[in-house]
């Protein structure tokens, strides 16, 4: 079990191998389909982004509403593959890692290798368990999208498995 602070500051990523179990602590940002489309539109228009991508981790997640007295609702990962087409622009902008569930395209694997990034798998369908690892939750931007907005999550010991490492090796090699 490895314990890592996020966003990444140095080359911590390079020590990770596909299949490693990791606990993440620090700050991650949620973004899924619509938020990705908007981020990439901003990049294409050379506009300033609402989040700092340098060393950042994006979590493919749209949480439930937050129940009274809780930090966040259920907040598990969504299918990563739908975000594949947006990955290159974000990696070029400095994104270091992604958290989601399921396989990625061959292109994404090559991009992860090229940019020395990492793709993590979070326990799929375990949003109630993962909610316990979120200590703070703030809306950053695109509030009109509700669960699809970008939220800044402070996480503690957030459990993930390395899905694709910075050498482009995937835990799903044979699937």
């Amino acid at each position, binding site marked *: 079990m490895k314990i890592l602070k996020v966003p990444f500051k140095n080359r911590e990523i390079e020590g990770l191998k596909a299949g490693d179990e990791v606990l993440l602590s620090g700050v991650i940002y949620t973004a899924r389909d619509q938020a990705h489309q908007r981020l990439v539109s901003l990049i294409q228009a050379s506009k300033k982004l609402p989040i700092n991508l340098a060393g950042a981790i994006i979590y493919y997640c749209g949480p439930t509403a937050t129940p009274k007295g809780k930090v966040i609702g259920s907040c598990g990962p969504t299918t990563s593959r739908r975000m594949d087409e947006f990955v290159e622009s974000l990696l070029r902008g400095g994104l270091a890692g992604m958290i989601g569930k399921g396989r990625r395209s061959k292109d994404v694997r090559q991009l992860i290798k090229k940019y020395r990034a990492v793709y993590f798998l979070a*326990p799929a369908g375990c949003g109630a368990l993962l909610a316990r690892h979120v200590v703070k939750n703030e809306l950053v931007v695109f509030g009109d999208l509700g669960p699809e907005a970008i939220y800044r999550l402070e996480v503690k010991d957030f459990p993930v498995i390395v899905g694709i490492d910075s050498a482009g090796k995937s835990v799903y090699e044979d*699937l």
Partner: protein
Amino acid sequence: MLYMLYYVKISAVISTMKIDKIKKQVEKIVARAAFELPADVSRLIKKAYSVETNKRAKQALRWILDNARIAKKENLAICQDTGLPIVFLEAGSDIRVCARDIEAVKKGIESGYAKSYLRASAVGPLKRGASFYGGAVIHLDFIPGVKGLKITILPKGFGSENKSALKMFNPTVSIEAIEDFIVDAARRAGPESCPPFIVGVGIGSTADGALLLAKKALLQDLAKPNFDGNLAAMEKRILEKINRLEIGPMGLGGKTTALAVKILKAPTHIAGLPVGVNIGCHALRRATAVIK
């Protein structure tokens, strides 16, 4: 005349009472489905956990079981994808059902989702944008012999729904080819659809009918064998084949890729053989209430 007026008033009161009852019951089952993993699903996951020897798969199953416990204890959704609400209504011979009752079901779903802090996952299909509570898909059947109005909710997440499959086979196709198609649907569903799955299959009817049967198959009690012996044998064979894929929990390998296969069939046309597959994720949530 006075008597008539009185009668109309009374029936209006009764009808309002029924509508309130439906709305309240629907709110209850919305919450129960979101927070409590059904006993038949939970039992199969525990069984899968106890026989698993692959370390990563065992860890994934432990997460799934811990998650179910936390969700129930803290009234948190088992999965953030609280689905598009699919509702199955079964009306018996002793109850009248009209459009207002269906409206009450829809209202109960919207208020139930809001009260339980579930996710607004419904959007217009092309415009997208802000999501809302609702978008319920409602199926109504009249079943002689059933008492009252049985309401079942199946909040269907789209990680699994996106991997639905339909094939219009020739009537002379072999059973083996049908089984291979179903196994292949599970393979393509893969880690994205949150294995271990419950695989719903519909054989016969029409294109839409086969897919609806496949979804209804997910409502079957997983502890009970198929009453049709041939289908029961087919389910067993397909389950074994799917588990040989070794996709496993979270796609990390292991013994259990599917927890169960459930098949429903219906008559079809002499010129065809539709087969529909609907994948249920490991968090196959459903809850039922009966209005008398």
